[in-house]
C-alpha cells in the first residue's frame, strides 16, 4: 500500500489502486476516454497490461483468469463501442458468477447525456448483467469506489462489477491526496458467511435417515473453494455425487462415488439417481433448466437440502425443504462435523442397496459410441486428449457439441481446470478464456477445445497469443457444422439444416501460420494420438490442431425439452435397449 499523503491524478489513482489491490494483469484496449489512464499506465510501468484484439476478448480473458485462479479478473476498455463490445463478456461472467472488475471510460462529466462522441449509457446498458455498477463523478470518490468494486465482486455470490469513469475524472492535472482504503464496510451489503446450525442439524437428520441420497453439486463449490470439504463429506457419507457442468472437478471425476454430470447431456446413472433419490443435497447449484428438465418431474421422491450463499437462488425454481444460506466451505465443514458426531461407526457400507441400483444404471454404459468407422469421432478425440495430457489440462471451451463431449470424456480431478461458459453459453469464449488461464499459469498446459463456428467468433485473438507468446493448444473439433444446432434440427426439425452449415471455412492451418503459429490438420483416427503428442511437445508454441471429425455425430444421452430425468434418450448404439 502506498503511504497516505501522496498526490495523484485520477488516472494515476486508477493504476495505483489496481496495484494496491494486488492485480497481476489488466486485459484491455485503449481509446479516447481512457487515454489518461493508458498514459498513467505507461509512466507507472508496474502493472502488466494485455492488449487483446477485441473488447469482448478482454472480458473473456479476465474471466478465464478469474476462473483459473479464483482471483478477480480486471479489464479496461474505452467508452461507447469499447464498453458495448465488452458487454457479452460481462454478461457471460455474470451468468456464471465470476468475480471481475471492468473499468470503462466515459465521456467527460459535462458532456454526459448530450449524445457526445462515443457516449453510451454504460451503467444503464450493463445494469441487468452486473452484480453492481458505479459511475464515478468526482475524483475524490475514485479510490474508494474501486475498492468497493473489488469487495463486491469477490464476496458473497461473486460477479462482475463495472466502474464507469468519465475522462475528466482522470485529468492528469488535477491531483489529490491518495489513500487506498484497506477495509471497506457497506451498511447495505453484508453477505452471509456461516450457515445456521439449526438448519444444518436438520440436514444431518435427513441425511442420516436417507435410503437413496445423492449430492448434486455445482459451480458454487468451485467459486467458494469448497472442494476439500465436499470431497471429505462425500467420502465420509459414502453417498453418490453428481455435478452440474459448472461444478466439474470440484470432487475428482475419477472418484468411484462420482456418477458423472447430470442434466440435459448428463449420464444415465446421474439422472436416474436424481429421479429416484429420497434426499437430495444440493450444494452451490442453482437448479438451472438444463439440469432439472421438466420441473414437474424433478426429483419426485426427494426431500431437498439446498446450500447456497445467495438466498435468492434458494427455492427460485424448485421448492426446498431445508434451505441453508452460507459459504459452501464453512457450511460443509459444519455439516461434516455434525454428521460425523452422529453417524454410526459400523463397517457396513452405507446405503448399499442404493449403490446396487446405481450399478445397474452404470452398466448401461450410456456414453458408449460407435468408433468403428473411418472418421475421427469427437468423443475419441477428447479421450485421446485426456490420455495425452494425463488429465492435467486447464481446458477452456467454446460452446456446442465439443463442449459437451469435453464435459463427458475429460474427467477433471481438480477444480478450476474446466473453464467454460455455462449460463450464457457464449460462443467465442474459449480462446480468450484460455489466454487468461495461460497467463495465470505460464508453466501449465492450457488448451482450448472449440468448434468450427465458435472459433471464428474470437479468432482475432490469435494475434494476442502471438504477441504474448502464449503456448496454448487449440483443439478444433471440425465437423463443418454448428453441430449443436444441426443436432437439434435433425431431431426436432426433420433434418432441415437451416443455416447451420458453416460454409466457406478458412484453411485453419494457413490461418494459424499467418499469425505466426503452428497449424496442424488431422483427418485419420490412427494419426490423432501422435499428432497430439507432437503438438503438446511444443512447449513454447501455440499450436492449432484442426481435427476433422465425423460431421453426423450427436451428443447423447439427451433429455429432450419437456421430459424428466427418467426419460433420457440414449444414442442409437443403444437402440437394442429398453430403458426405464
Amino acid at each position, binding site marked *: 500500500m502506498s503511504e497516505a499523503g501522496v498526490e495523484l491524478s485520477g488516472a494515476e489513482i486508477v493504476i495505483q489502486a489496481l496495484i494496491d489491490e494486488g492485480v497481476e494483469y489488466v486485459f484491455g484496449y485503449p481509446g479516447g476516454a481512457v487515454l489518461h489512464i493508458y498514459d498513467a499506465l505507461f509512466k507507472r510501468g508496474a502493472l502488466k497490461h494485455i492488449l487483446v484484439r477485441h473488447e469482448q476478448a478482454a472480458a473473456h480473458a479476465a474471466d478465464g483468469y478469474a476462473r483459473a485462479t479464483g482471483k478477480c479478473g480486471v479489464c479496461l476498455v474505452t467508452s461507447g463501442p469499447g464498453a458495448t463490445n465488452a458487454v457479452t463478456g460481462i454478461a457471460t461472467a455474470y451468468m456464471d458468477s465470476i468475480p471481475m472488475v471492468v473499468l470503462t471510460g466515459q465521456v467527460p462529466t459535462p458532456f454526459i447525456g448530450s449524445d457526445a462522441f462515443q457516449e453510451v449509457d454504460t451503467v444503464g446498458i450493463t*445494469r441487468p448483467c452486473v452484480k*453492481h455498477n458505479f*459511475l464515478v463523478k468526482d475524483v475524490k470518490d475514485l479510490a474508494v469506489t474501486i475498492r468497493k468494486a473489488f469487495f463486491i465482486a469477490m464476496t458473497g455470490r461473486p460477479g462482475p462489477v463495472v466502474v464507469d469513469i468519465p475522462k475528466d475524472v482522470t485529468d492528469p492535472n488535477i491531483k489529490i491526496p491518495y489513500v487506498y482504503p484497506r477495509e471497506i464496510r457497506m451498511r447495505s*451489503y453484508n453477505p452471509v458467511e456461516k450457515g445456521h446450525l439449526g438448519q444444518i442439524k436438520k440436514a444431518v437428520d435427513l441425511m442420516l435417515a436417507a435410503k437413496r441420497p445423492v449430492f448434486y453439486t455445482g459451480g458454487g463449490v468451485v467459486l467458494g473453494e469448497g472442494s476439500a470439504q465436499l470431497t471429505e463429506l462425500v467420502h465420509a457419507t459414502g453417498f453418490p455425487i453428481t455435478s452440474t457442468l459448472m461444478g466439474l472437478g470440484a470432487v475428482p471425476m475419477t472418484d468411484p462415488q462420482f456418477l458423472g454430470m447430470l442434466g440435459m447431456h448428463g449420464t444415465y446413472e446421474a439422472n436416474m439417481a436424481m429421479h429416484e433419490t429420497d434426499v437430495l443435497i444440493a450444494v452451490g447449484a442453482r437448479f438451472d433448466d438444463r439440469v432439472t428438465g421438466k420441473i414437474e418431474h424433478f426429483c419426485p421422491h426427494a426431500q431437498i437440502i439446498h446450500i447456497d450463499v445467495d438466498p*435468492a437462488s434458494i427455492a427460485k425454481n424448485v*421448492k426446498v425443504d431445508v434451505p441453508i444460506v452460507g459459504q459452501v466451505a464453512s457450511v460443509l465443514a459444519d455439516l461434516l462435523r455434525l454428521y460425523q458426531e452422529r453417524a454410526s461407526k459400523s463397517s457396513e457400507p452405507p446405503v448399499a442397496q442404493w449403490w446396487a441400483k446405481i450399478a445397474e444404471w452404470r452398466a448401461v454404459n450410456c456414453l458408449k459410441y460407435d468408433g468403428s468407422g473411418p472418421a475421427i469421432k469427437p468423443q475419441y478425440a477428447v479421450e485421446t486428449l485426456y490420455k495425452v495430457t494425463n488429465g492435467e489440462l486447464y481446458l477452456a471451451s467454446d460452446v456446442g457439441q465439443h463442449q459437451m463431449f469435453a464435459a463427458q470424456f475429460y474427467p477433471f480431478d481438480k477444480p478450476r481446470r474446466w473453464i467454460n461458459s455455462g449460463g450464457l453459453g457464449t460462443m467465442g469464449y474459449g480462446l480468450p478464456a484460455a489466454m487468461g488461464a495461460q497467463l495465470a499459469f505460464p508453466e501449465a498446459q492450457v488448451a482450448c477445445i472449440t468448434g468450427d463456428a465458435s472459433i471464428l467468433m474470437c479468432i482475432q485473438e490469435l494475434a494476442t497469443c502471438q504477441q504474448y507468446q502464449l503456448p496454448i493448444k487449440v483443439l478444433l473439433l471440425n465437423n463443418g457444422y454448428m453441430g449443436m444446432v444441426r443436432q437439434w434440427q435433425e431431431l426436432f426439425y426433420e433434418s432441415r439444416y437451416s443455416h447451420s452449415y458453416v460454409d466457406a471455412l478458412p484453411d485453419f492451418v494457413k490461418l494459424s501460420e499467418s499469425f505466426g503459429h503452428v497449424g496442424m490438420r488431422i483427418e485419420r483416427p490412427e494419426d490423432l494420438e501422435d499428432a497430439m503428442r507432437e503438438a503438446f511437445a511444443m512447449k513454447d508454441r501455440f499450436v492449432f490442431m484442426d481435427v476433422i471429425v465425423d460431421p453426423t455425430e450427436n451428443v447423447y444421452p439427451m433429455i429432450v425439452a419437456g421430459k424428466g430425468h427418467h426419460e433420457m434418450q440414449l444414442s442409437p448404439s443403444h437402440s437394442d435397449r429398453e430403458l426405464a
Partner: protein
Amino acid sequence: MRHIIAVLLENEAGALSRVAGLFSARGYNIESLTVAPTDDPTLSRMTLVTTGNDEVVEQIKKQLNKLIDTVKLLDLSEGPHIEREMMMVKVRAERQDREELKRLTEIFRAKIIDVTDTSYVVELTGASKKLDAFIDAVPEGLIIEVVRSGPTGIARGEKGLSL
C-alpha cells in the same frame, strides 16, 4: 395476493432504476412505486405495491434484498400497518355542481385547495380504496384530471424500519 413492501435504499443515483429494472427484467408485477429521501438524507425510502403468489413475492423480496443499494426491507402486509395515498382531483365545478362537490368533499374529509369560476382542485388522503370511492362518487363527466401518489405505508407500533 397484494403486498405492500417498504424498502430503505442508499440515496444513490441509479438506485431507483435498479429497482424498476429488476421488476421489468424478471417480469414481476408492479402496481405502484413511490420514493423520496428520508430524515436521513443518505437514505431513500421506497414503497412498492406488487401482486403475485407467495413464491413470486418471496422471490421479489429476495431479489430486492440482493440489490447492493438495499439497506433494509419490510413486507408491511405481513403485520398490522397503515397505508396512505394522496390524490389531487381537478373537477369541473359550475352552478349547482359546486355545492354537490363541496358536500362530497366534506363527506370524504377532503379539502378544496384551488378554486376558479369553473373548477376546483380537491385534495384527498387515505387508503387507496377510499380514493377510488371518491372518484366513483364524483358525478359523471366532471373529472378533468386525477393525480395519485401511489400508496405509502408504515408499520403500526413502536418498531421502525430504520438503521
